[in-house]
């Protein structure tokens, strides 16, 4: 029982999340103009993906579970896409 330790996958995931956090803070201070916002959201998406695939175990769950998990994000995409369409296409 004393020999138990978390899997390497969990440690790697945590380390990757910390690296991405350091990266996003560093890049936020670089003058990239509009791309600062894009980069911040892209890194946030990568971090969220790691949490969902490794910590929430979606990487090895059956298709049914993934479908339930994906449904929420699918509807979120519809919300953001249709909701923002008007604003971002207006001059």
């Amino acid at each position, binding site marked *: 029982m004393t020999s138990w330790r978390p899997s390497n996958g969990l440690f790697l995931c945590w380390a990757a999340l910390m690296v991405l956090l350091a990266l*996003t*803070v560093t890049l936020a201070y670089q003058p990239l103009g509009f791309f600062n916002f894009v980069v911040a959201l892209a890194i946030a998406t990568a971090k969220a993906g790691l*949490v969902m695939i490794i910590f929430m175990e979606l990487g090895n769950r059956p298709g049914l579970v993934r479908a339930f998990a994906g449904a929420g994000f699918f509807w979120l995409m519809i919300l953001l896409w249709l909701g923002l369409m008007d604003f971002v296409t207006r001059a």
Partner: protein
Amino acid sequence: MSEPGDIAAHLSSPKQRDEVLELGMWTFLSTEILLFGGLVMTYMVYHHADPVSFAEAGRQTRIVIGTINTAVLLTSSFCVAAAIQAGQAGAVRPLKGLLVVAIVLGLIFLGLKGVEYAGEYSDHLVPGVDFAQSGPHAQGIRLFFIFYFLATGLHAIHLLCGIVVLIVFLRCARQVVRRPRYLAGLRTAGLYWHFIDVVWIFLYALIYLPGRSG
């Protein structure tokens, strides 16, 4: 395998019980995604309308506390995921230890958030209570901080609920060796905890990072 009372009467097998728990939590999380998604959409609309004010407001947030809190929450997620692995291995002591660390990290997050709120109050950045900004961007900054307090407040309430849930699982952690239902429940609680983490990852990018390079 499972004791009497380990499965509800309307379920036929432990496998079905575990599936119902997991799918039920994901269904609940879908509604949560849309709750926070609506807030994020309002942020996007106002950010698009007035990016300069939002950059100005983002610069006034406390990025050191925000970054520490992000690391704290990510680490707590690691602890919860590791606690589930410990539970699967039947290692009760590591399971308890990891849950304690996750709970403490959650409390540290809330404590730092309180420090942050106090700082914003003394900076007169709380719309509706004490907001004293002037200049051409005052209105945009006000909108940003309305979003800030709504989103982080809602997130903090979720985190508080998550902490209570983890305390319940900590108190009956010994059940992990004889009741498979415990582990299925803990995994469901873990999904909720990780979801709170995912929400914060996006809030961090939207609140603390804008305007830093300007």
